[in-house]
């Protein structure tokens, strides 16, 4: 099948970008979306033009590297699917496909479709962990965890950190990503000791990164390749209120960190 591609090209972080139109003429419905772009890039190379830069690695929907907005939808039309797992059978011959990078103040474009998502790492570094220095652990079955709880935790832990939630949110909010981690750890007994400071610290970092707040548009949940539920956002809100009421303060508990 043949497609018309309208792709965002931007040669560097502080350079203005623009859309360029390309023709993809020999697309097979069995190709993955990224394989389609590979083919386009090979053609660009022949024409002596620079290939389109895009992030990707595992191409199995798990590393969270691939990131592009296709026709206004982060990760494209197929629900619960990353672009690398999206196949061309989701498009029709003759379609025009608009491809853009994640757009958010906190995710500056590096080149073409490649953006800087390091803000996510900083949110995790702020408190998205359980302090368990190597070697300090007791027997794994020492603390029993109800299957339901560990399943719920697993649902949240499935987040691949791709950033589609931010890209899709009209507020450019990172609530779903942050909430997924807060929930994952708050749901487990091992996560209890740091529960309050985690919520406080992660939310503080999230705000410091200039992400927007949550109006409950639900767009994030709709594009999330791992179907992380906005229930987690409500849970995080509860965690923050809880932490505030406990009134232990962040600075105080901060000392304990490291």
């Amino acid at each position, binding site marked *: 099948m043949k497609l018309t591609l309208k792709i965002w090209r931007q040669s560097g972080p502080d350079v203005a970008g623009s859309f360029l139109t390309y023709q993809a003429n020999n697309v097979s419905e069995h190709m993955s979306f990224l394989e389609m772009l590979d083919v386009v890039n090979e053609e660009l190379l022949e024409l002596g033009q620079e290939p389109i830069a895009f992030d990707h690695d595992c191409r*199995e929907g798990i590393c969270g590297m691939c990131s592009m907005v296709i026709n206004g939808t982060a990760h494209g039309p197929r629900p619960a699917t990353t672009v690398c797992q999206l196949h061309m059978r989701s498009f029709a011959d003759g379609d025009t496909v608009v491809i853009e990078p994640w757009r958010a103040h906190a995710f500056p474009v590096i080149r073409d479709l490649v953006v800087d998502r390091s803000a996510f790492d900083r949110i995790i570094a702020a408190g998205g962990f359980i302090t368990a220095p190597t070697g300090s652990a007791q027997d794994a079955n020492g603390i029993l965890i109800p299957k339901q709880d560990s*399943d719920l935790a697993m649902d949240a*832990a499935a987040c691949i950190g791709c950033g589609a939630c931010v890209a899709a949110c009209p507020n450019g909010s990172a609530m779903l990503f942050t909430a997924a981690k807060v929930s994952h750890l708050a749901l487990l007994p091992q996560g209890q000791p740091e529960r309050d400071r985690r919520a406080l610290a992660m939310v503080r970092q999230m705000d410091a990164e200039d992400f927007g707040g949550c109006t409950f548009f639900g767009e994030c949940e709709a594009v999330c390749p791992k179907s992380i539920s906005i229930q987690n956002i409500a849970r995080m809100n509860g965690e923050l209120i809880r932490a505030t009421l406990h009134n232990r303060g962040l600075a105080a508990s901060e000392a304990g960190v*490291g």
Partner: protein
Amino acid sequence: MKLDAKMPGGPLEEKWDRHKADLKLVSPANKRKFHVIVVGSGLAGASAAASMAELGYQVSCFCFQDSPRRAHSIAAQGGINAAKNYPNDGDSVWRLFYDTIKGGDFRSREGNTYRLAQVSANIIDQCVAQGVPFAREYGGMLANRSFGGAQVSRTFYARGQTGQQLLIGAYQALERVIGTGAVKMYTRHEMLELVTVDGRARGIVARDLITGQMESFAGDAVVLATGGYGNVFFLSTNAKGCNVTAAYRAFKKGAGFANPCFTQIHPTCIPVSGDYQSKLTLMSESLRNDGRVWVPKAQGDQRAPGDIPDSERDYYLERKYPAFGNLSPRDIASRAAKEACDDGRGVGPGGRGVYLDFASAIARLGEPTIRERYGNLFEMYERITDENPYRRPMRIYPAVHYTMGGLWVDYNLMSNLPGLHVIGEANFSDHGANRLGASALMQGLADGYFILPYTIGNYLGGDKLPAVDTSHPAFREAEERATAQLTRLLAINGTRSVDSFHKELGHIMWEDCGMARDRAGLERALQRIPELRAEFWENVKVPGAAATLNQSLEKAGRVADFLEFGELLCRDALVREESCGGHFRTEYQTPDGEAERNDAEFAHVSVWESAGEGKPAVMHKEPLDFEFVHLATRSYK
């Protein structure tokens, strides 16, 4: 090249404890003074960097992705082994050790493999403490499943995302110490040179992939945790970025490369669908717990699987290997699939596929149970093939998956280059000639959490190192070499893309050095690879500049290394005139087509030493002596 494994004496059970007692220690006050460079943030790298930082070392950690959490370990699906014996089905450290060394076809060191089994249990404890949500029973206990090459259930798993959850655990531990400043993380940085000063590894040169800047980093020890080289075959289950560059450039600096020809072909991957194919997708081995592998008995049977009655199906694994059946080890299952297809009984496009059928499991356990166990794998399969595996058996075919070979290391995980430590898939590790399922995650975390943090102290606590910083000429020189290569690549401006070369190399490797190898094929490959390499350096086209994000340039550098490394791999395969594990030489097989090992001549590690640019590498042998296990012929019948 001196190859001293530094294997402690004494009974197998006591080696590690004795060794730990003998290791030199570094006092907490002094640890702060040592700077360790960790290249790689996968299970091995992240766990090592975090653990060493917790001990007090200054650590710098590098990865080429935009976040340490994206390392290829994230893709591991099936699970991680540990000799916990929770199911009480007779597992033990010894049994895990024995299964591993037998699975590896007796081509690994007893001492290392035993230690791996010993620390396996601590790994699960550590991960649970970090909040890794392993699957659990209703009673709240951890759940186990069985995996290839084992008759006990010792595999822990988190849905079909075990690697992801383990890596997220290690990543969180790493981010925690990044937060405290104990680790400095360099993402989107690619190591291009290892820097040695007076024969010791003292730093690296890495390229900032965003600015294109060449940067030098000096340290007291360098740890490579850069993963496997499966992508030398172009098509593999590895992530697109997986490469041999870091390891190969260390090899060029004098590090020994061990058993490069020990590569693993995974039996259950989704078959190739077209020549645009960019990678192959693994369907976790765990599927073989409940899936039955079969092909039609008749050649070229074009009927839909549903229309083929049981009597006309050949469940060849169950037939050939009654004891292990569908759970026979990977090398065996892969070869059996190849045989069936070569015999014209393959299914799907091109006849390059076999069925993995869940009908009977669904009948026995019901669809919900199967969905609970493999839901996300089934979805992935349907997404890619547009076929519903609940209704129609999966089509699978073997694909390159893992590389047992890697940089040579001693019992302390240090290479022959003092100061250069190698962990995870990047070292030649504990898996011999074939790795059992769920053992790589175990090894990566064993190395990173529980072995390297001890053994590196032995090096750092040893003889005093002279202070070295990046002003040392060795760094200039390394930077210049790295820059020169990029400039050269950009200057060629030929007509063929990097990928086209990579694909051609992959094709050669797969055809002549893949599942079944023979002298003729290997010699052909050894003829064609140098030719292809020569053409690459004359005719490759790398657009763009060196001073920006340039993905073609990154690929070009990696493929340049693969083009040299592929030759080394084939040479290793050629000189190992026996069949063992993943290395199957058709000349050496038993009458019934099983691998025929030659312990008399080949019970050794082949360690290759670079002889400098253009000159053929030299092979050294580290003999493998087996005091505690007797070298049985592997039988899964």
